[in-house]
């Protein structure tokens, strides 16, 4: 026998796997492939449900906006909250009707926004700042007027406020 190992090794035949193993492995393969087909079907179902949900939300928003527009066309703009009307009346009492209306319009624009939430918050902040500026301006004018009037009366306190003047702490309303 030759001591050359390569031909010697090649003369032997590997035993290989059994026929029984072949059927066992291929059976497991087909089961695995079948099991994989299940989740794919379920995944499609899940996607369909998610798509339906998104479609439902979008159509709900669309219908609600359409309804709002229709109602606005039929009955006019949405009524303002009582608290806003109260503020507007107070503004009107210390300034004039035009300023109060302007404030109401600004509030209505901020209250019924057609834009995103961050924009809405920004507009609301702007509105409250405008309101504060107008209020302070009006308050300053009135105070100056009262001081001048009361100064003429004997015993009056300089800078004293009249009963009609109410104090609104707008700084507490505004975000930091």
């Amino acid at each position, binding site marked *: *026998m030759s001591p050359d190992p390569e031909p010697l090794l090649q003369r032997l035949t*590997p035993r290989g796997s059994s026929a029984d193993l072949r059927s066992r492995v291929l059976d*497991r393969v087909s089961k695995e492939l079948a099991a994989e087909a299940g989740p794919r079907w379920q995944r499609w179902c899940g996607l369909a449900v998610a798509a339906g949900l998104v479609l439902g939300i979008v159509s709900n928003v669309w219908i609600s906006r359409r309804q709002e527009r229709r109602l606005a066309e039929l009955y006019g703009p949405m009524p303002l909250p009582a608290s806003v009307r109260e503020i507007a009346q107070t503004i009107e009492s210390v300034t004039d009707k035009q300023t109060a209306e302007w404030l109401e319009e600004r509030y209505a624009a901020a209250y019924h926004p057609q834009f995103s939430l961050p924009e809405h918050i920004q507009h609301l902040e702007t509105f409250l700042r405008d309101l504060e500026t107008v209020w302070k301006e009006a308050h300053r004018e009135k105070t100056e007027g009262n001081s001048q009037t009361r100064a003429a009366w004997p015993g009056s306190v300089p800078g004293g406020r009249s009963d009609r003047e109410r104090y609104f702490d707008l700084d507490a309303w505004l975000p930091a």
Partner: protein
Amino acid sequence: MQTLAQRLAQGDHAAFAELYDACADRCHHYLVARLGSRDAADEVLQETFLRLVRQHRCLADVENLAAYVFMVARNEASRYAGRRARISERQKPLAADLFLEAKSEDPSRREMADLVSAALATLNAEQREVVELKIYGGLTFREIAVVTGVPLPTAATRYRAALERLRGWLARQLS
């Protein structure tokens, strides 16, 4: 016409049967040599094909399917050996587990199978793996380098060193 890799990627059962017929026997022999037992090789070969099924979508990109199957089998064998540490102690399979000739009625063929089995047992694990993959796995050095994760020259050097060792051992046995 679609290639075997493309059919495998689509999850075609017949393609897996075709792949099994093309590689399983060679791969099984390699696993027996690596794990030392036919039962362990059976289990690992099954795990190998299940892993191929689980990642069948990636198979379309595989250039050399045979080398890929051996690589997956090698990884599965390492996992199996890790799970059952005692298997690694038994690295030397019997000739009857490896070669058809070991059960031959011809005494000279049986003797030859025993001799080769004993000769392979003298090699270290790395050299033996390269010899098994080259001679019985039918892989090229490039494919062996891919399967074992070593550079091509290293695989070739290991093979040459293994043959030198076998030659010396056989010369001593036959003298």
